[in-house]
């Protein structure tokens, strides 16, 4: 076969990255992750699955710059990430991170803190994102008055209003019911296409990963290493109806086969 080189820009590169949490009172040091080699391409939708405790969240925090690797290098757009969150990176956490003392507009505008645009422009952008996330009717409500799903939407809005080039999502739909999850999945895909950002998603739901991602990496039990990389090959224009495709079942089974063994290892250790 003729080799065709397609130039893909790597946006995030991990080389030999390891994370060991140092010993604390009554706790031994924990080798949480690695060594890991990984490459996330610009503009792709990348998912990570793995058994609980395998270090998925740690991986996300390393890429976000919230914590530094014990060994190895991480680069975002060619620059090394140390202990600082690089500009252009947005994070949506699993827990509810809404500021309960601000209403929805104020929460979203907070996401523009790092930028130097003027007040009027901030208001305009916040309004646009609120519209995009379907929150217009709740703009002046407080998070306490909203459901779990809506609060998560506020957090997503707050993240994307700054137009990040890389969006990290740490099991963002973990606390939601199944129906809401599926709807949010469609919304994430829509956002991904509209913003053109790279999306990095951590999830424990295999069908969610296969439905949403271009590439999926499977992690082993702790200490987490990458043990499989799956390419879904889906077209960019897709939504939850992708589950009807023939490939869908095959891909999900492949993930589960690898994952099942790792999950058993984790359970055995915990039990």
């Amino acid at each position, binding site marked *: 076969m003729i080799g065709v080189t397609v130039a893909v820009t790597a946006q995030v590169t991990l080389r030999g990255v390891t994370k060991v949490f140092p010993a604390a009172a009554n706790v031994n040091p924990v080798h949480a992750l690695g060594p890991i080699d990984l490459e996330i391409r610009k503009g792709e939708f990348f998912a990570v699955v793995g058994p609980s405790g395998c270090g998925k969240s740690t991986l996300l925090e390393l890429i976000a710059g*919230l914590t530094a690797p014990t060994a190895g290098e991480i680069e975002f757009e060619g620059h090394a990430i140390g202990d600082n969150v690089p500009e252009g990176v947005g994070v949506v956490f699993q827990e509810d991170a809404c500021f309960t003392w601000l209403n929805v507009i104020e929460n979203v505008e907070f996401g523009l803190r790092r930028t130097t645009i003027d007040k009027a422009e901030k208001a305009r952008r916040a309004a646009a994102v609120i519209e995009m996330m379907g929150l217009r009717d709740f703009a002046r409500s407080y998070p306490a*008055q909203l459901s779990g799903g809506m609060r998560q939407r506020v957090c997503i809005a707050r993240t994307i209003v700054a137009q990040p080039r890389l969006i990290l999502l740490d099991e963002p739909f973990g606390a939601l019911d199944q129906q809401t999850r599926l709807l949010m999945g469609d919304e994430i895909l829509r956002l991904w296409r509209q913003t053109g950002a790279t999306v990095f998603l951590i999830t424990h739901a295999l069908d969610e990963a296969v439905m949403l991602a271009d590439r999926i990496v499977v992690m082993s039990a702790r200490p987490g290493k990458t043990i499989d990389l799956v390419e879904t090959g889906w077209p960019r224009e897709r939504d939850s109806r992708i589950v009807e495709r023939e490939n869908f079942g095959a891909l999900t089974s492949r993930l589960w086969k690898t994952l099942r063994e790792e999950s058993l290892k984790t359970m055995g250790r915990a039990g």
Partner: protein
Amino acid sequence: MSRLRLYQITVVAGFILLLEALCLSGVIDKITMPAPHIILRDLFLMLLAGRYFDEIGKSLVNVLVAFASAYLVGVIIGTILHGHKTTREILDPLFATYYAIPVFAFYPLFIVMFGLGDGPQVLIGFMLAVVAVIMTTLNGLDRVSPVLKKTARVSGLNALQTARHITLPFCAPYLLTAAKLALAYAFIGVIGSEFIMARSGMGYEISYAYTNFDNATMYPLILLILLLSIAANSLLSRWERMLLVRRGQA
């Protein structure tokens, strides 16, 4: 009006009416206590005539000084302790036991050390209030969830900005609770000390009136103190509740 409010008003009104009936019928004699409406009238006349304004003012100033110093010092110490785990753990038994100790027992000692002026009373008020402020501040700071701190870092905030834009607004309800407690304790400490031994102030006037069988002065002043402390407590509670309701923490 809700059933709850109705219930509460009925209880209070019923109690006052009961007292009134007992007094008017002579079951409670005049020497022990005048009828409620007479106490109210005497208080009204007293305030109208401006009597005891100096003494009332003096007590309130002392309460405010005790309150303000306890609040300031308490919040600062609480914030510092929050970052120093070992010191905090050592002081923990002190905080746990503090309100079981008769702080008033130190009053004679303070009189000996500082003389019979305003100092000992304010000091007792301060001592009673400060630990409640420290404990409430620590409690509030403990509850700032990790996800909020991570959000601060992702938003590029430095330590000072995080404190101003995230920690402070989050802890606002707790700071209000601390103020409520500090005011109540400062009140108890200052007025209580004036009762036991002092040369001026509301507590002293009540004590003096008691020794001189002056019910017409004593009861109105007692009523005034009750009304003032309940009013202050209710106002701060209402404010506290407003903040909690907005945040869904009620």
